[in-house]
Every structure is written in structure tokens, then in C-alpha cells.
């Protein structure tokens, strides 16, 4: 009895010390990886600071790297050309990178930090739908534009005057993928494996809806947890047992790579494998290896020889020159979002509300922004309907255009 009592104060002391340490860490560090630094002291009126928020680490880090590199490329190009002209003055541009780790809690935290930093004019990001949704309230409350180059969940822009994106929504994506299965691949029995987050669930639902209309049968619909589920054999086995002729993965590239390998190598399935645009990353091919051959993915744009106009060609060249790496779809979309944001700032000045109004005024092809991925303009919600769902197929270890719906 005496002993167990005596334990108490020590436990308390230990926890207090540990807590003190944690708190000290919190105070000292810039938090969610503000790679550009928090030094608001260095911020002068001659710099336009733009927050770039995405999964720089964590299970979607391949996307984050592309986003960061594309933003840094745009930043350098603009600054090398003397910066942007706002109100008759030349201003330098600075991309300040924040890491949300693809995690909702981190995203909300980043959003709070960003929206309370008055030197930041606009947010490029977030990337994961689930993060954009988690961050949305903070941005709309404070009144700073959240311009996503990657979030496709239906609700990302709904009801928020400050939320924009420059790619399609999942209802459109899911619909197109379902129709593609019916008309081009001519399959009937489909198994859906989906990431149990906002993106995966939303895409699975819109796919399923259209699939039933097109006469497809969803023979299995299996959720998994990103980062937690590692052994996909029992899940893919369900698809096999149900006699699936095609597997549709509504999730991200890492899990899709494991699913692809399990289906092809372990279960010897020869069925079609189709991924949503979350699978659209070169890392998918790296990790899945030979098993990835013949797999198809949806994407709003494909960086590939011959696709896109001269802007696309120039972008690919300069990206490769700066980062020694091929850009992907998301790099192109980020590059465009950044460019469109800067164009809006040149016209509207540095006021956050004015920037928002300027962006929102792009309502048709003529007033839209012409970039690498085509023309971007918005509807009243800030959604973008000008990008198609393009289908790419893995051939000899690279994404190339597949047969298209149109």
C-alpha cells in the first residue's frame, strides 16, 4: 500500500519532465516543416509570399516533392525575370513550403498557422482531398484563397468562397472511369478496393453509381486503411474469389503498387487493373515493377512527349534542368496554379480578398488562365470543369496515353 502510494510523485515528475521537453520542442521548432522559414522579419514589402501546402513527408510524399519542386521552379523563373509587377512596382516572389503529411490533424494545424500569418497572400494546396477539407474552414474564416492542384473530392470547394482547384471533381472522374470500363474495356464484373478516406470513399461512390447505370456489376467493394493496411492478400483474394474481371483502386500509389503486385505475382490474376488519379505517380511504377505493366490510371493531364502545347514542352525542359527529374501531372498542375495565382496578384494587388475576387472572375475560356495543363477557369463554387479525365497506361515502365473515351 505504502509502495504504490510512493510511486505516484515520481510518475508525476517523469511526466512533467517529458511534457516540458515536448513543449520545448514545440516552441523551438517551426512546427510542420515550414521549409521557407517563419522569419516574418525578413518579409518586406518587396516580397510576395505564397504558402505551398502538401504532403512533403508521409505516405504521399512523392506528390509533395513534385508540388514543392514545381513551386520552386515557378518561383525561380519569375524572380529571374525580375519578379511580378504589382501596382507599378516589381516584387520578388517567395514560395513558403508547409508540410501537412497527408494527415488531417496536421493539415488543420498548418491552416491555422498559415491563415494567421499576414505576410502570406494565398495558399497553393492542400493536395490530399482529406487535407483540403480539414483545412478549408480555417482559410474561409480568415479569408485567404486555398487553391488546390490535386484535391478531387466533391466537397472541397462547395460552400467556401475562398476555395478553388484547377482539376476535375471525383464525381466526374468516377463516372468517366466507370464508363471507360464498360465501353472501352468491355468488362462487367468489377472489384473496387478503396482507401477509407474522403478521396477514396468519394471516388468509390461515384464510380459505383455510374457503374450500375452502365450495366457493370460491382462484385466486391473492399476498404483498406492507408499506411496501416500492408498485407493486401486477403483483400485481393476477395476480388479473385468474386470472379472480378477488373480491379479498380480508388486510393494512392503506394497501396496500389502493393495491390498490383499481390494480384499479379501472388494470385496470378490477369484481370484489368485501373487506378484513380491518386495512383498517378512514377513511384507507383518503381514500386510495383513489372507487375505494373498494362495497368491503367486516370489523370487530369499527362506529361508526355507530344501532349500539351509549347508551354508544356518548355515546362518539362526547365523542370528537368532544375530538378534532374521528370515532372509528373501534379507538378504541372501546381505550376499552373502558382502561375494563375501570380497573374491574379499582378492584377488585383496584395489584398487577400481582392486576390480571391480576381481568381473568381475567371469564368470562361476567354477570362481563364492558359497554362501547361490547358485553360483553367471556375464555376461559382470554384470548381473547374475544363480538364478532361485522361487515361494513361503503363508500358515499358512509363505512363503513356491509352485509348481515350472521346
Amino acid at each position, binding site marked *: 500500500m505504502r509502495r504504490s502510494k510512493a510511486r505516484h510523485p515520481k510518475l508525476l515528475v517523469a511526466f*512533467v519532465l517529458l511534457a516540458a521537453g515536448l513543449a520545448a520542442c514545440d516552441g523551438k521548432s517551426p512546427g510542420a516543416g515550414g521549409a521557407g522559414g517563419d522569419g516574418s522579419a525578413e518579409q518586406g514589402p518587396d516580397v510576395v509570399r505564397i504558402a505551398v501546402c502538401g504532403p512533403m513527408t508521409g505516405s504521399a510524399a512523392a506528390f509533395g516533392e513534385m508540388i514543392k519542386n514545381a513551386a520552386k521552379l515557378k518561383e525561380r523563373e519569375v524572380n529571374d525575370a525580375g519578379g511580378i509587377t504589382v501596382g507599378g512596382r516589381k516584387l520578388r516572389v517567395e514560395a513558403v513550403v508547409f508540410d501537412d503529411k497527408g494527415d488531417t490533424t496536421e493539415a488543420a494545424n498548418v491552416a491555422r498557422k498559415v491563415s494567421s500569418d499576414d505576410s502570406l497572400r494565398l495558399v497553393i494546396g492542400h493536395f490530399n482531398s482529406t487535407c483540403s477539407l480539414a483545412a478549408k474552414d480555417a482559410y474561409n474564416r480568415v479569408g485567404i484563397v486555398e487553391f488546390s492542384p490535386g484535391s478531387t473530392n466533391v466537397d472541397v470547394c462547395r460552400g467556401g468562397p475562398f476555395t478553388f482547384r484547377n482539376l476535375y471533381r471525383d464525381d466526374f472522374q468516377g463516372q468517366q472511369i466507370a464508363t471507360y470500363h464498360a465501353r472501352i474495356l468491355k468488362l462487367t464484373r468489377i472489384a473496387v478496393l478503396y482507401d477509407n478516406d474522403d478521396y477514396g470513399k468519394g471516388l468509390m461512390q461515384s464510380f459505383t453509381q455510374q457503374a450500375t447505370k452502365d450495366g457493370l456489376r460491382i462484385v466486391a467493394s473492399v476498404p483498406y486503411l492507408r499506411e496501416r493496411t500492408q498485407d493486401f492478400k486477403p483483400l485481393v483474394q476477395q476480388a479473385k474469389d468474386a470472379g472480378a474481371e477488373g480491379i479498380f483502386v480508388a486510393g494512392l500509389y503506394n497501396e496500389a503498387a502493393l495491390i498490383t503486385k499481390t494480384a499479379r505475382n501472388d494470385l496470378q490474376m490477369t484481370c484489368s487493373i485501373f487506378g484513380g488519379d491518386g495512383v498517378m505517380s512514377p513511384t507507383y511504377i518503381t514500386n510495383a515493377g513489372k507487375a505494373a505493366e498494362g495497368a491503367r490510371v486516370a489523370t487530369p493531364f499527362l506529361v508526355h512527349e507530344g501532349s500539351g502545347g509549347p508551354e508544356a514542352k518548355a515546362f518539362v525542359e526547365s523542370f528537368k534542368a532544375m530538378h534532374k527529374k521528370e515532372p509528373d501531372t501534379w507538378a504541372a498542375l501546381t505550376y499552373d496554379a502558382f502561375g494563375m495565382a501570380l497573374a491574379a496578384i499582378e492584377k488585383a494587388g496584395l489584398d487577400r480578398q481582392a486576390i480571391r475576387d480576381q481568381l473568381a472572375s475567371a469564368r470562361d475560356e476567354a477570362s481563364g488562365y492558359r497554362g501547361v495543363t490547358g485553360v483553367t477557369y471556375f464555376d461559382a463554387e470554384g470548381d473547374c470543369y475544363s480538364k478532361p479525365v485522361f487515361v494513361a497506361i503503363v508500358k515499358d515502365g512509363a505512363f503513356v496515353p491509352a485509348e481515350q473515351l472521346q
Partner: protein
Amino acid sequence: MFTAENLVNALSLGALYALIAVGYTMVYGIIKLINFAHGEIYMLGAFGALLAVDLGHGSANVLLAVVPAMLLCAAVGMSVDWTAYLPLRRRLPRADALSIALLALLGVGAIFYKLTGDSTHRWHAPAAHTAIGWSVLALVPVVILALALGEKAGLLGRSLGRVHSERLNALITAIGMSLILQTLAQLVWGAEPRAFPEAALPEFLSAPVPLGLPVTVLGKELLIWVTALAMMLGLHLLVSRTRMGMAMRACAMDQETAALMGVSVDRVIAFTFALGSAMAAVAGVLYAVKVGGGISYRMGYYPGLLAFAAAVLGGIGNIRGATLGGVLIGMVQGFTGGTFSAAFLVMILVLLVLPRGLLGEPQASRA
């Protein structure tokens, strides 16, 4: 869900969890410490093999790479013991041991935190920090005052030194070690999950084995079963038939008496760490081979937790219990399609009926 295919998968998972769980249980048996860094050792096993394969320029075989992975993990396991737990076990004045360990831990942790922008991902750090931060703000002046006044009155020595909670210190240190190893792995290998290159994987791993069963068994599944069985058998022989095994059992019973009988307790403990770590390394490599990749700095967390659950389920401190628990947890995982809650639910249900686990011995009066 109770199909033959799922049974094959469940048995493979169970074998792997058992390999990890014995590491938890052996260390607990001797020093009564839940070594939370064990899941990270398992992760380092997979990375060690990946490193060996990379160094071998693709000509290296994963199955050969297991050996350097085991050596690496044995070394890391022993270093963890030497740097983190041994100073806490030594009879230093307790206050010193406590503060040195915690300060070193926090210092290193803070440096890594700063370097990586908190990439550990284990806790929802910011939310926790905000909460902890505020409570600390309230507590800090009280503690400082108590320490300042206490030192004069000799209170520091008494309040910190008298209290018995070496085990708690070690537990907190173990959690810190786990974070440090994760972050180190991320610094070295990056955040992206990786897979073994295809050239390093022998053909037979993904080929069905002709066993004459009505269900397909792949080469790697058979390999997992055979390896796990052999290692468990080897472990059993080692513990029951060798001098070192006898020393381990003696230390588990009573360290002080064992020391009086000439057993070098610290060496036995180091050996236990090395042994458990090497087995975890094998599990890490085989798991990465089984699932086709997913080698990342976070890969140890959930399997580590599940193996810990397996060790507790089987009766922590008991090697056969850990094996049984591992197989059971594997079954639950395999048949439920990998839901985590199911595995922990089974553990809780078993503990409700058998609080010491399936094969746990009644706790001796020494507690």
C-alpha cells in the same frame, strides 16, 4: 471468410507475429521492460536487407541479405540496451540516472524534431503538444519552486531518489528510443515506402509449391512457415539446453541471486536483446517479401503493436505463450481481412477471462 486461402495467409502472418512477439516477451521476462523500440528493430531488419541488396548491386539475393540484416539488428538491439536501458538499471544515484536519461533523450529528440520538422507521425503531435504545452505552463513554476526550495532542504534527493520507478523510466525511455530509431530511419532512407528490387527476389518465392493441397501455397509462404518453425525450435533448444539459456532463465527468476552465482547479468541481458532483435530482423525481411514492399520508417508500428498484443495475449514473459499468441493474432488478422480492432478485441476478451494471458504463470510474490 474462413476459406483455405485465408488460412494460408493467416498462418504466415501468425508465424511472423510470433517471431516478433518472442523478442518482446524475452526482454520482459528478464528485465520486466516492454521494449517499445522492438517494432523499430523489425523495421530496421527490412531496411538492413534492402541496404545489403543495394550494396550488392542487384546481384545480391534477399535470402542472403537476411544475414547482414540480422547482424545489424542484433547490434542495434544491444546498443539500444547499452545506451538507453543499462544506465537506468545501474545503481547510479537514481535522480542522476533519471535526469541524465531524460535529458539526453529529450535533447536528442529535440534535435531530430528540429531536423525533420517532426516527421515521426506516430502521435498527432501538434494537438498533443498544444494540450501538454498548456498544462506544462501551469506546472513548470510549481516544479521549479519545489526543486529550488527542495534542494536546500535536501528535498530533491529524497523526492526523486526515494521513489521506486525504474521500470517507468525504462518504459518512457523505450518509447523515446522507438521515436529516435524511426526518425533516424527516415533521415537515412527517406519517407517513401520502398520495395526489394525484383532482381533480388528468387523466382520460387512467388511460385506455387506443389504440396498436393487443394489450396495454393506460394514459395514465400512455405518459406515463412519453415523459417519460423526452425527459429522457434532453435530458440527452445537454446533456452532449455545451453548454458546461456540456463543463465537467461536464472536471470528471469532472480537477477541478484543469478549474479551471486557468477552469472554476468548485463551480458545475458545484452544477449537477449541481440537474440530477439535478430529474430525480429528475419520477420521484417520476410514480411516485406510477403506483402511485396512497403519498407518504410513507419512499417514497424502496427506489426510491433500487434506482436506486443500477441505477447500479452500469450502471457508476457513466456516464450511458448508468445508463439501461441502470435499465431492467434495472425489468425484474427487473416480471417478479418486485417482489421486492427479485431485483434485487440480478442486480446481484451482473453485478458478478461485470463488476466495473465493464455500461458502466463501466476506472478511471484516478488512484485
